[in-house]
């Protein structure tokens, strides 16, 4: 069985993001980029399924600027077999990405698509669900455990107050939660081998899908800075402040 894993290039989680001076978006110039952590978990899971003999091939796909190649190389270093880059000159919003992925699924015919539940830049949490709907495939989101065996996949999900286990026939869509696994370190020899694995580039415009953005960003602003706390002398002063300053009593 073939597994397709979409991966997104995002601002590295260590970077403190900053709003551009003109409030048109987040500053990306000179900022370190990396693979979306949930997608790393998705790749790791797919590679583990391959190592367990369940999957036969893992294909990573990314949509966006040419620099997404680096993200795909990182996926190949973890253990994906080959990669597809879908380039686009327009900004890609979740629906456009889902449509691109549908086109790639139709071409590659995987039995399973594993995606991150959301990307840490826009936190949209939409692509997996949209893709399942467009393909009319069953989906299990926020997976914390995945077991696949002949034509079926069992997915455990963390829900309020407990665990839920779903069984789905293949083909299916899964999105990963944080606790699904802890991705391995890419080793130096594997990074070297990844440079030689096949990476195909497809122009997004050639897929015949509508990539036009549907949403317009009006403005982006920093959250208001928190005021420093104060030390109160005694309970009476605390009550007074809660009443008269915070006005919560």
């Amino acid at each position, binding site marked *: 069985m073939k597994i397709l894993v979409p991966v997104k290039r995002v601002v*590295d989680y*260590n*970077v*403190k993001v*900053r709003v551009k*001076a003109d409030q048109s978006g987040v500053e990306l*110039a*000179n*900022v*370190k980029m990396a693979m979306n952590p949930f997608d790393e978990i998705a790749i790791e899971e797919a590679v583990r399924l391959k190592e367990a003999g369940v999957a036969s091939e893992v294909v990573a796909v990314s949509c966006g600027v040419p620099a997404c190649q680096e993200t795909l190389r990182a996926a190949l270093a973890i253990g994906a077999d080959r990669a597809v880059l879908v380039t686009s000159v327009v900004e890609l919003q979740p629906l456009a990405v889902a449509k691109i992925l549908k086109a790639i699924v139709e071409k590659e015919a995987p039995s399973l698509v594993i995606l991150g539940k959301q990307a840490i830049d826009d936190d949209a949490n939409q692509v997996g669900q949209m893709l399942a709907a467009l393909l009319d495939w069953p989906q299990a989101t926020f997976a914390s455990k995945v077991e696949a065996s002949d034509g079926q996949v069992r997915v455990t999900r963390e829900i309020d107050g407990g665990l839920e286990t779903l069984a789905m026939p293949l083909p299916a869509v899964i999105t990963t939660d944080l606790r699904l696994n*802890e*991705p*391995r*370190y890419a*080793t*130096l*020899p594997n*990074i*070297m081998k990844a440079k030689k694995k096949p990476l195909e580039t497809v122009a997004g415009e050639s897929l015949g899908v509508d990539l036009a953005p549907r949403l317009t960003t009006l403005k982006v602003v920093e959250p208001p800075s928190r005021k420093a706390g104060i030390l109160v002398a005694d309970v009476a002063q605390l009550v007074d402040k809660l009443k008269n300053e915070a006005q919560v009593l």
Partner: protein
Amino acid sequence: MTREVMDYDVVIVGAGPSGLSTAIRLKQLAADEGAEISVCVVEKGSEVGAHILSGAVIETRALDELLPDWQALGAPLNTPVVEDRFLLLSESGARKLPTPPQMHNEGNYIVSLGNVVRWLGEQAEALGVEIYPGFAAAELLVEDGIVRGVATGDMGVTREGEPGPNHQPGIELRAPHTVFAEGCRGSLSQSLMARFQLRVDSDPQTYGLGIKELWEVDPSVHRPGLTLHTIGWPLRADTYGGSFLYHLENHQVAVGFVVGLDYANPHLSPFEEFQRFKTHPAIRGVFEQGRRISYGARALNEGGFQSLPKLVFPGGMLVGDAAGFLNVPKIKGTHMAMKSGIVAAEALHAHRAGQGGSVVAGYPERLRQSWLWDELRGVRNIRPSFRWGLWGGLAYSALDTYVLRGRAPWTLRNHADHTALKPASACRPIDYPKPDGKISFDRLSSVFISATNHAEDQPCHLRLKDEALPMSVNRALFDAPEQRYCPAGVYEIVEDAGAARLQINAQNCLHCKTCDIKDPRQNITWTPPEGGGGPNYPNM
């Protein structure tokens, strides 16, 4: 556990200006002859440039030699210097001084060295150099007295030093020649100096600590191409140091402060001196409507010519700031680092063609014939003359520069920085103003914007040789100076059940190396943490 081995013709430790220049020149020379050479560069930062912090105004002399068509290749040198200013500050005043010749910057460029290095990395990769960021060279491979390469550190080791669930052993990178390009106070370079006695004929190396911030300023105060240097306030005349302020492109200003690590007063805090400097009436206007976007710190070499170690030893060589080629009066090391890398590559290339054994003796020989040597020799007495204080140093420097023209028949000696501290009780306490949160800041909010991260579960990479000294010597005699010289708040004295102890917040470490240099008993050893850890500098 056995480690995987990868073999190369040349292994280079550190993807800074020196290491990448070595790599590029090696590939160029091989290509000229239609020959093959395999070159591998390891870099402890998460990406090339992530650990690069510099001013920086750079001279293009070495770049012109290495890649003469750098402009066409898109090198990020976009802001030529248009004006140099030099100020002597007092607490509320500022006097213009004539700019000394070493600080004239016609023809030089204001750059982000991080971006220049990223670009150099692309040039190197295009020539077939293999660069591996995210891997620290943690161990020397020495057999029969010859360096055979380096090993990268293990990944996924727990705090207690045990292999964790994702443990990956390091890799041995083996080569007939290893080039150490770790920059100032390299951790493996330090071991090499001890092991091969590379410092027996030289003065101790001396250092400064450079702390830097990047600001986005109001367009009305932005003067692209302007450089400003100051001396004087807030430092006293007995302390060597000063500031730099460079106006880059895109409304950005790089501002930094360098303090000579031979300062004597353990109450001194380079970080707080820097914060205070920015509030000077002649300076603060630049920042008033701006916002700070990055922060970092890095030690730099100040020992110069008389502190150069032996540059070659069996199986390896030192290039760039790992050796110490920095021109202190110019505060420029990039062109020297690049030149030393170029010369090292040329010597190594010639050496490989012959059958010269494991020591590339041609490298120091060629270096002595190059402009680098004359440049460094000519300014050798300027920095040491500041032992006579700011006024004595300025007077001597003027004499040395204008009258003797660098040809004094004597050489002033250097002394190790860690010996310079006087007991706290014998020194004047310093009362630093509280940060205002607009122009001046505290350490933690500063480290926050350096995007520093270290995997939490790993052994502490700052090692104490003797666990007792932080209290019995550092605290008792010097009032725990590591709390103040560390620009990242790594060292903290905390009270535990009535007993004070030193807490090391290693995850904040900016890899500046100051603790390794300044600890009065040389009790702290800086070792590389898990690869990829440390700051994630943008364009510093």
